[in-house]
């Protein structure tokens, strides 16, 4: 890459500084050096802090909802407030938490490191994306103060054009947040194409990066449609343009097409990065080369593509034509294929591996279990005839919480623990990590398994009252949600403890093989003090660790220097 006239590349091993004095954390000091940083690692942490904050806010709202559902009649809030709370819970969790969660936080931090780059391609755009995100969040806040929104996070017309609540500012918030998401995706695509270190061919890229690539493609292709959708909705409210509003000759079902053309692919923006983390975890903690590298890598792209063909499975009872319902139901089944491919390859990777049940691996196993339930129920409700019965019931609520919380959030927690030593330079307490993982796993199931049962018996979603027969299950679910809250508090405690009092982390505590572990913990300002050269795949646990720490040697260095063919076939 550096000099195209050369046929060979001179490389040598670079030792890792286990006690770095100068790191990205102390490179510059002061709050402003954080708020206006262009360092992808710091921006990753800014995003991490922000999404955790919104996860907390969304979580509190969820606990309010669950508390209201303790009794069949009104418990703590009235119907209108309940509508606003579930709308806010959904909108915050989707647009402010889960969409940016893995890519913008962990992805921002690790994508450049995993390809041996100093930064993403457009560092200032990266910072802009975070500021735009904050700006969008402020708009959402403004909407909450000025009357909130009670349409559900889906903003369906015609209700969203009639309700007296603050829809326009919320749609503008969504518009702005979409822009931030686009900038992240754009940055990642260019970075992966242009900034890979010598030797890091597409076939040697960690699977987390393949998944971020697929995610970025979806972000680029789907988010603009969300932008125009919410813009048209705002215009519908402001001017009454009559495109979606039936009382003006518009078509509300068309709104649903627009909305789901973005929002179904968006569920893959949420889950595909999680798949990437799981690939890293399963290989690392099974100490085994990933099984079916290309199958996993390409299935991410396949999911990204097929994800664009199935949006109408959210609209089976909307009044869309029978023809399109049948086609959408048929196409929906195809999504299961690449997803299944991944699950089988992960399981095959673990087979005969030396599995180390560290906290991140426990999360990976929890993911396999929970996501499989979420995915399989997805296939069930993708079937037209079954969907007609289950649509808008708690069955749907359970389905998407199993994929989004049981899938994405659990995987993100796994990734957070896996990379915690690298990001902070501190180790967390393994014992409490495992206990907490167990608490979260059990209480999650306690919360959402009953919802499948209630949904199948006809409990509709988005109601604050219900018939008495469901009270037992609802209360069980509510208690589960409280325990879930306890689990997160436990995590917050031991992670904060680790931050201040935890033991120092070595550079590579898990004996992983990908590049981000081949520099000190925490990394230095430029990630690497040399230009890394990649000889082996990211999961080649059978190759000596030394060969993963190669970098371009200077002209003057003669001992230990190896000459390699620059473009091995």
């Amino acid at each position, binding site marked *: 890459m550096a000099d195209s006239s050369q046929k060979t590349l001179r490389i040598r091993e670079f030792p890792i500084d286990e006690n770095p004095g100068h790191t990205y954390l102390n490179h510059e000091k002061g709050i402003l050096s954080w708020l206006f940083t262009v360092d992808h690692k710091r921006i990753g942490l800014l995003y991490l802090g922000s999404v955790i904050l919104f996860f907390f806010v969304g979580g509190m709202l969820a606990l309010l909802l669950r508390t209201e559902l303790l009794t069949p009649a009104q418990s703590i809030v009235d119907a209108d407030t309940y509508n606003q709370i579930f709308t806010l819970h959904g909108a915050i969790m989707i647009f402010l938490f889960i969409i940016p969660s893995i890519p913008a936080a962990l992805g921002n931090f690790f994508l450049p490191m995993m390809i041996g780059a100093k930064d993403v*391609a457009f560092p200032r755009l990266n910072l802009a994306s975070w500021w735009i995100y904050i700006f969008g969040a402020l708009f959402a806040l403004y909407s909450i103060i000025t009357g909130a929104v009670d349409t559900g996070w889906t903003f369906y017309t015609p209700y969203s054009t009639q309700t007296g609540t603050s829809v326009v500012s919320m749609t503008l918030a969504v518009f702005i947040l979409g822009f931030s998401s686009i900038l992240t995706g754009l940055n990642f695509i260019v970075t992966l194409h*242009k900034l890979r270190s010598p030797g890091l061919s597409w076939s040697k890229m960690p699977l987390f990066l393949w998944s971020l690539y697929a995610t970025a493609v979806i972000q*680029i292709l789907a988010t603009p449609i969300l932008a125009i959708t919410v813009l048209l909705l705002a215009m519908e409210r402001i001017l009454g*343009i009559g*495109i979606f509003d039936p009382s003006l000759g518009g078509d509300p079902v068309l709104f649903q097409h627009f909305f789901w053309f973005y929002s179904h692919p968006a569920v893959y923006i949420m889950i595909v990065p999680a798949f990437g983390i799981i690939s890293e975890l399963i290989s690392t903690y099974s100490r085994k080369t990933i099984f079916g590298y290309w199958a996993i890598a390409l299935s991410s792209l396949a999911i990204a593509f097929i994800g664009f063909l199935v949006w109408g499975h959210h609209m089976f009872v909307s009044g869309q034509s029978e023809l399109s319902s049948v086609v959408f139901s048929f196409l929906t089944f195809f999504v299961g294929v690449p997803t299944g491919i991944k699950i089988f390859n992960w399981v095959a990777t673990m087979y005969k591996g030396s599995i180390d049940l560290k906290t991140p691996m426990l999360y990976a196993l929890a993911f396999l279990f929970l996501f499989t339930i979420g995915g399989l129920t997805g296939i069930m409700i993708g079937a037209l005839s079954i969907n007609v019965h289950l649509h808008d019931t708690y069955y749907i609520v359970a389905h998407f919480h199993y994929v989004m919380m049981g899938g994405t959030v659990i995987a993100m927690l796994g990734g957070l623990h896996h990379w915690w030593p690298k990001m902070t330079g501190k180790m967390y307490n393994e014992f409490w990590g495992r206990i907490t993982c167990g608490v979260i796993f059990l209480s999650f199931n306690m919360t959402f398994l009953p919802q499948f049962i209630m949904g199948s018996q006809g409990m509709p979603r988005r109601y604050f009252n219900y018939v008495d027969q469901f009270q037992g299950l609802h209360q069980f679910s509510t208690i589960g949600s409280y325990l879930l809250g306890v689990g997160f508090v436990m995590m917050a405690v031991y992670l904060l403890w680790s931050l201040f009092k935890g033991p120092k982390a070595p550079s590579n505590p898990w004996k992983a093989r990908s590049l981000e572990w081949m520099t000190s913990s925490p990394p230095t300002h430029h990630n690497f003090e040399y230009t890394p050269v990649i000889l082996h795949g990211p999961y080649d646990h059978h190759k000596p660790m030394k060969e993963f720490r190669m970098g371009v040697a200077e002209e003057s260095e003669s001992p230990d220097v190896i000459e390699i063919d620059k473009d091995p076939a």
Partner: protein
Amino acid sequence: MANQSVATEKKSHLQHHFVDEDQQFESSKMGMWIFLVTEVLMFGGLFVAYIIYRAWHPDLFYEAAQELDVALGATNTVVLIASSLTIALAIRAVQLDKIKAAINYMAATILLAGTFMVIKYFEYMDKFGKGIYPGESYTYDGLEHEMAANFFSIYYMMTGLHGIHVVIGMVLIGWMIIKAKKGLVHSGYYTPVENTGLFWHLVDIIWIFLFPLLYLID
């Protein structure tokens, strides 16, 4: 094709995370193309709405389009094509280090863009004068079709969003003129001018579709 090629020479704008100028230039351009994709898709949403409604109400589109002035639309098409040419000439001039000429071409582009907006302004005013407003404020009764207002809503959304892009383009080109005056762009580094040019051409391409779809329904 007798087109020349030159290698870049001056090194000055290289950011630390790139290996060389070419890598940086190619990265920026790829980033710009990806951004243009999002623009196409955002406008695309409006085209989809157009297609759906035209398929539902062909008579509405035929009838209402007669209100639009083909001559003005065609003039604007010519104006935008001319501006696409001038911005392309500006980029060529920068590449050849003829900064003065580049500034003049960019100024011409802004002028043409301004012309486009002025013509658009008169078109809008003419419509408003008749009571053809977007959405519910529509009061014109010269059209039979009960959904006439819906056609004009689509018309205003499409041309309005396009108009906003024209204005953004004018601002960007103005900024490039300032950069050129300060000597910040030259044959060795002209990435921002190149990307502004790409943006401007896209604005032209979108109009190329808007013109026949809105004005030329017969």
